[in-house]
């Protein structure tokens, strides 16, 4: 896997800039943070820009050997909404598998409900995909999967 540390800076004109480096494969998050803090004073001694943050990224190969169906299309996306009613968070999945959406009614082909997902045999996956994760705000998901939409960029 590839491991990369990137430092973000800004100059007096508000121009953001960055530079990065690859770290050894055995580097964990704690070691990367310690290294970033060790680098920090040396970078600040060399640069009059100001550091605004850093990022440690681990990149893994997908190892997905499935053939891609002819109907796969990243311009189509499935937006899943997880809600308690007062709070909602969403997750986007590109090129959804066919058969998830309702087949009758005014939202046929567009709206994914718990019933239509169950009919496609994928309700468990839609509920499980958020387990162990949090929303962008770092909060627990507000509720189980409630509804989804299939959209297409023309």
């Amino acid at each position, binding site marked *: 896997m*590839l491991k990369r540390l990137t430092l973000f*800076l800004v*100059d*007096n*004109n508000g121009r953001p*800039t960055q*530079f990065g*480096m*690859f*770290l*050894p494969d*055995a*580097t*964990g*998050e*704690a070691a990367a*943070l*310690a*290294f*970033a*803090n*060790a*680098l920090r004073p*040396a*970078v600040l*001694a*060399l*640069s*009059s*820009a*100001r550091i605004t*943050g*850093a*990022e*440690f990224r681990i*990149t*893994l190969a*997908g190892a*997905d050997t499935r053939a*891609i169906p002819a*109907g*796969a*299309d*990243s311009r189509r*996306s*499935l937006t899943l909404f997880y809600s308690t009613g007062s709070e909602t968070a969403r997750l*986007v999945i*590109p*090129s*959804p*598998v066919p058969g998830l959406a309702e087949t009758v009614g005014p939202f046929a082909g567009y709206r994914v409900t718990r019933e239509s997902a169950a009919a496609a045999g*994928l309700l468990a*996956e839609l509920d499980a*995909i*958020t387990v*162990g*994760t*949090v*929303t962008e705000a*770092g909060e627990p998901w507000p509720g189980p999967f409630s509804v989804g939409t299939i959209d297409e960029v023309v």
Partner: protein
Amino acid sequence: MAFTGVNTPPSLTLSTVDNNRRPGLTSMYLPSGTDEATTLSFLNLIRDEYLALTQNRLIRANVTYGFREDAPLAVIPKSAESERKLVLIFDVDNGRGIVTQEIPSVVFDVEADNTDEVDPAQPLVAAYANLIVQGAIGANNGVVNQYGLQITGLRRAFIAHNSSNRRR
């Protein structure tokens, strides 16, 4: 003053591609404090659920830990200019490759008169290069290149403007 990773949720991004090589992304966040081993275990768990929902092929997964700057943003000198860079050229694997880094808005202290070249032994430059080569990442494990080969020394340093190929 330091970086901190406290309360910054790491992000997990799954990169996919369709039959026409168009990219598709799904991003999600993990609880603050999730370590690398736990993250990788989770990725293997969620992979199957995710692949059941998309026709695209998964080509890459990125796990990103953001390190927040916990000190207030200090005054930025008017002379700070991102386009004026210190270009550092490092040897990889004892001369069998190179890695280039560009540090933006380089301080004037490292410059010498009438030249763009910077002495690699200049104290500020040497201190930085030593961290890159020796690292603080483990027993003599410093920074590596994209193939995992060790950076072994600073070959050359100079000042550049706008791009690493343009010189005063």
